[in-house]
């Protein structure tokens, strides 16, 4: 029952607890944000911090975030590192292979805006948002694992507040 407490106050229990009433939105959002399977996209030094975040010390698994090898299994893509123009075409292709609903986190200055390569990096894409839509930007060069966790929690908040049937907020 501990998990269901997260749905409060939009949950009602009847009888001995076998019947639960909630809204479709809340249930869908809760299930989505509780198992954000991520596609690793480690491209540079940010990947080291991302790996550290996944490892036992910071333990991404406790948020239900586990790395998957195939884009077809994934809910989020975590762009961590310098996006070269050569790699950008691959990112776009893998993003297109991910099933909806899908989200993108841009980690580190390079993926956000080109970082130190903004002026003379002829081969660097100046921000991954020129290729795919980004939901959360995590600043830093590279960001600490705490910062990445903050970004992931921000994304969970975004998912928690979205609506499947109301057109008020963009889903993806």
């Amino acid at each position, binding site marked *: 029952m501990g998990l269901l407490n997260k749905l409060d106050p939009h949950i009602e229990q009847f009888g001995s607890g076998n019947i639960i009433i909630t809204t479709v939105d809340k249930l869908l959002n809760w299930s989505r944000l509780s198992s954000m399977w991520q596609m690793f996209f480690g491209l540079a030094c940010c990947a080291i911090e991302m790996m550290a975040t996944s490892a036992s010390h910071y333990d991404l698994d406790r948020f239900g975030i586990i790395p998957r090898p195939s884009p077809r299994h994934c809910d989020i893509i975590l762009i961590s590192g310098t996006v070269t123009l050569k790699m950008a075409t691959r990112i776009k292709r893998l993003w297109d292979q991910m099933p909806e609903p899908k989200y993108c986190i841009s980690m580190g200055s390079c993926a956000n805006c080109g970082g130190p390569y903004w*002026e003379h990096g002829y081969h660097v*894409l100046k921000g991954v948002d020129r290729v795919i839509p980004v939901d959360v930007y995590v600043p830093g060069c590279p960001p600490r694992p705490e910062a990445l966790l903050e970004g992931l929690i921000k994304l969970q908040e975004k998912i928690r507040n979205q609506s499947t049937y109301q057109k008020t907020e963009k889903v993806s």
Partner: protein
Amino acid sequence: MDINEIYNKLKAVFGDDIIELKTDKPVDPFIIVNPEKINAICYFLRDEESLQFDSLSCLSGVDFDKDNLASVYHLYSYALNHKLVIKAIVPKEKPELPTVSDVWATAEWHEREAYDMMGIIYTGHPDLRRILTPEDWEGHPLRKDYKVQEFYNGMKVPY
């Protein structure tokens, strides 16, 4: 072997194709050679009993000055423990010189990189394609006069 001895040995065999020896400190002393003869010179450096340059440590492309590019060869002899730097200067309007990939196989990828970054064309190279940038890239990025392209595959390149 001393750089002057190497220079004299080369001079005796190749004559005017060995253009100049420069020993200005602090850079390594280097010999400027005729680019058209680079292949023959390298074969000689490798096979001559008293030189035995069995290793090409590095091959680099250089934007040498306003009108010239250069191909720089850092050679080392494991057998005799001496080293040598050779420069072959080619004009920018026709940056062509023979490959040395048949002398040292390691030159194959080095020459591809020099071609990719500087646009130096190595004639006789078995597979002279771009090695770092995508195949449909425009221009040679490490040239001083390089202008970055506005769009690549629909993606805006400048900031």
